[in-house]
């Protein structure tokens, strides 16, 4: 009996005694993990059309649904600063306005009656149109989606609705303490006018016109579209259907490669007062890297050591050992095609702001001067590698990953090579990347909190006077006080 074995193991461990008593009394290590059941993640079929458009088909017959998406290059980082927020308005107005043949409200009624959806969304580097329906409605819903893709109507009324919604977000943005903290700390890294951080204002969303939306649509639709469909369908029939729609399009015109100048992080201490909170939100930030960087696997291991949930150094020290925070995290970020952010976050009661900040900074410094142990390395690699399966345990995840890699121009076997690289990461690698990328003297520290309650005060951090950040919301119409 297994249970008896466990206890037997436990007893032997105690009897053996000596320095290694612990190692031998770990009853869970006596539970063998049998070989994992064989598994070959089901790869989608990739078809590249002559015009450069790429199709992905992922059959999945478990449930009677079909869903799809058209991913379109170009997003909010490409909009003009004077019209910041335009992509949000575009993606909202696109769907709510509907197509030339069916307005958005009628489309809402029709789709809801079928328990189907068609939605549009905008991101910082792309926009997309997606759909989802029961199998029996595949043709109808696909037809509507294609109609919306090629013949949108962009109505003035729906643009105005989207502008009002966006205005609500703008005037409410200082109600959320963590919203302020994440937004303003990112600006310290990418600059207040940076393509990833500039914020929509009442004036910039007010400047957006229907002509802007139409122009954006016409321009981006000529880009390299990636069309992906998954669910309960016959691949050959679906391929024919997609070809009929997308093959007649002209050869794609790729957008110019995205290039942005990213300002240097402004190191130092920053403070934003918020009178209605009793907890400080501490952000320690700097610039990260992108996934093309061959050091990313070693950085991933370093991240697990620093910020892994439960086991990472930040969690162990600030939450478990000191009880200073519920929410604490940290990582050196890497995006697919632009530098991510290095970010350490902790939320602690006003009175322990200085304690928690000092502790977080100490943990960052320790990345460069506290030796990593084999135990830490092994644990971090186990955490990543033994759960790696969950990167592709559903057909939808496999498809989404392939679309992502295609969009950013990474090889289709990226995950495999990434995993192999993680396996090879050594202590020396982690030590080297930490020294190379972590610069405790170059980070910016932002505290959002209740000034009068923060005792001891931030001057105890010995970082000089905290620089104030003005987060007031510009109001073009002064009569609207709210």
């Amino acid at each position, binding site marked *: *009996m297994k249970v008896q074995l466990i206890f037997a193991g436990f007893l032997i461990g105690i009897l053996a005694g000596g320095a290694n008593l612990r190692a031998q009394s770990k009853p869970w290590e006596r539970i063998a*993990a049998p070989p994992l059941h064989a598994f070959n993640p089901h790869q989608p079929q990739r078809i590249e059309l002559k015009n450069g458009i790429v199709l992905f088909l992922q059959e999945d017959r478990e449930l*009677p649904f079909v869903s799809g998406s058209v991913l379109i290059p170009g997003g909010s980082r490409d909009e003009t600063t004077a019209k910041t927020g335009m992509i949000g308005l575009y993606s909202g107005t696109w769907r709510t306005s509907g197509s030339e043949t069916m307005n958005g409200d009628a489309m809402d009624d029709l789709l809801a009656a079928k328990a189907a959806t068609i939605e549009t969304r905008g991101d910082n580097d792309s926009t997309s149109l997606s759909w989802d329906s029961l199998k029996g409605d595949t043709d109808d819903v696909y037809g509507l989606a294609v109609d919306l893709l090629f013949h949108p109507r962009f109505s003035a009324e729906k643009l105005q609705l989207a502008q009002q919604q966006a205005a609500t977000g703008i005037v409410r943005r200082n109600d959320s303490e963590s919203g302020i903290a994440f937004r303003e700390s990112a600006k310290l890294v990418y600059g207040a006018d940076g393509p990833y951080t500039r914020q929509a204002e009442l004036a910039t969303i007010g400047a957006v016109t229907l002509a802007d939306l139409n122009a954006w649509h016409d321009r981006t639709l000529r880009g390299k579209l990636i069309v992906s469909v998954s669910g309960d369908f016959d691949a050959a029939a679906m391929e024919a259907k997609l070809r009929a729609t997308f093959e007649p399009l002209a050869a794609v015109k790729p957008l110019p490669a995205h290039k942005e100048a990213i300002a240097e992080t402004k190191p130092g201490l920053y403070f934003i007062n918020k009178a209605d909170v009793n907890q400080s939100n501490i952000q320690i930030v700097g610039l990260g890297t992108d996934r093309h960087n061959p050091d990313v696997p070693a950085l991933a291991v370093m991240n697990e050591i620093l910020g892994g*949930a439960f086991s990472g150094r930040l969690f162990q020290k600030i939450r*478990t050992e000191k009880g200073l925070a519920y929410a604490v995290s940290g990582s050196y970020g890497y995006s697919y095609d632009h530098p991510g952010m290095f970010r350490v976050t902790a939320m602690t009661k006003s009175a322990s702001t200085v304690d928690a900040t000092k502790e977080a900074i100490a943990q960052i410094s320790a990345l460069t001067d506290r030796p990593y142990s084999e135990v830490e390395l092994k644990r971090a690699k186990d955490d990543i590698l033994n759960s790696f399966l969950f990167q592709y*345990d559903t057909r939808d995840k496999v498809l989404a990953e392939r679309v992502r890699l295609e969009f950013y121009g990474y090889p289709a076997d990226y995950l495999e090579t990434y995993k192999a690289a993680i396996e090879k990461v050594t202590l020396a690698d982690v030590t080297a990347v930490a020294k190379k990328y972590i610069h405790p003297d170059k980070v910016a520290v932002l505290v959002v909190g209740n000034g009068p309650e923060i005792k001891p005060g931030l001057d105890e951090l010995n970082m000089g006077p905290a620089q*104030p*950040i003005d987060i007031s*919301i510009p109001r073009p119409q002064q009569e609207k006080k709210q």
Partner: protein
Amino acid sequence: MQRKAIFSLRKSVLALVLAAMGVCGVRAQDLKSFEQRITTKVLPNGLTILICERPEAPVFSFATFIDAGDVNDPSGASGLAHMFEHLAFKGTSQIGTKDYAAEKIALEKVETANDAYEAEYLKPVGRDEQKLAELKKAFLAAQTEAEKYVIPNEFTEVAQRNGAVGLNAYTALDETVYFWSMPENRLELWAWLESGRLSDTVPREFYKERDVVNEERRMRTDSSPTGRLFEQFLATAYVAHNYGRSGVGWPSEVGQITATEAMEFHKKYYVGSNIVVAVVGDVKAAEAMPMLERYFSKVPGGPKPEDMTTVEPKQFAEKSVIIREQTQPFYVEGYHRPNYRDPDNSVYDAISDILSNGRVSRLYRSLVRDQRIAAGAAGFSPFPGEKYPGLFAFFAVPLPGHTPTEMREAIHKEIDRLKTTDVTDAELQMYKTRTRADLLRGLADNQGLANALAEYQTRYGDWRELFLELDRVDKVSKADIRRVANQVFVDSNRTSAEIDTQPAAIQGAKGGAQ
């Protein structure tokens, strides 16, 4: 260890699933398919194990569903169930300790020191501040002594090193749920860990974890405008039942919960008959069940804890809360309704669907699209729990320049429409069609399915209700909707809460730095 937020995702998922029983043609086929793939067993200690075979990938998810939450916290100890949930990640006598025998003695000393400190602290008169400081010092010293034996976070470390993802738990008012996903070849390791923490919890690092929970309260409630608003809203809506009590706990109470109290809660509520463990994924019941049975038999038996006697008395006076502060306006109101066992449960789901689901919903079309006064508006139910009579609640987020009063009036207009005019055939049919599809959509996710099966097994004593309740959904009629609306949405049954934005004071008014 995330605590359920006030706009709980899970609650809305439950509402969907509850509503989702409107499956027509697909129903029999699905129930049959699940009958073939689901095996349940009640162990001699009363604990129910449910295995659902879904071998799509070599992984599994589990949900351990405890039929006790913060509604069961004793008077004066709000937040206790949640504190225990945090404790359940701290290990057992076999994991997380260097020497349990010595640690046990040290932990007892911590309790003694805490009792002495608290006794002095709570003295109504004649508190000796110097003595208090000494007692606090002794209490901290006892903690330091006990920590010598701790291997911090070893329980979670072992789970994560073995591939656990989504490792978390939540405590709601009605229940406490633990869950994660793992590669299928770690099933036995999981069974060892999970059965261990259910049966052999050690109150390790309790007082530091209490500090962590206090930070959780500051984050979710104190420092959030809607967190503050919803806490006041519920505290006002209820006069007797624990649904009106802060789930995360009132600061004075959660700040004084002891490890002893947490262990008493465990002893009373973590008995086999109060626990359902659901496993979904690449697991063969025939092989796994005997193994799981061996491990989970360790959980103590004991009677199902007695249900609470308190029944919220009928509300006869309208109540309201107004928070005047500098944050942006918000409006919420609620009406008492029966619990999930009420024959009209599906009627409430139909009403919330028709009022709130998507851009076709009445509240969106009226407040957002046509009147242009709100950024969003919805009705939802039951809130804050389903086990006992909860509320049917509405909220609306005003557009700039619009007020909570306008939200209230606009919501009432839609409520009046429900009372005086039948919903359309199309609306009713849409509700039934969408809920059918939503139920189906949820079936392809191991974790979601594990949670839903465990919940239905607990709440109805039979997971099949997940599918069978659709008969009640199918029977919802236009007349039912009018009848229920007239019954429940009456002025004297209403509690409302709002944030009225006050002009900023002179200094620091802009939220800028000082």
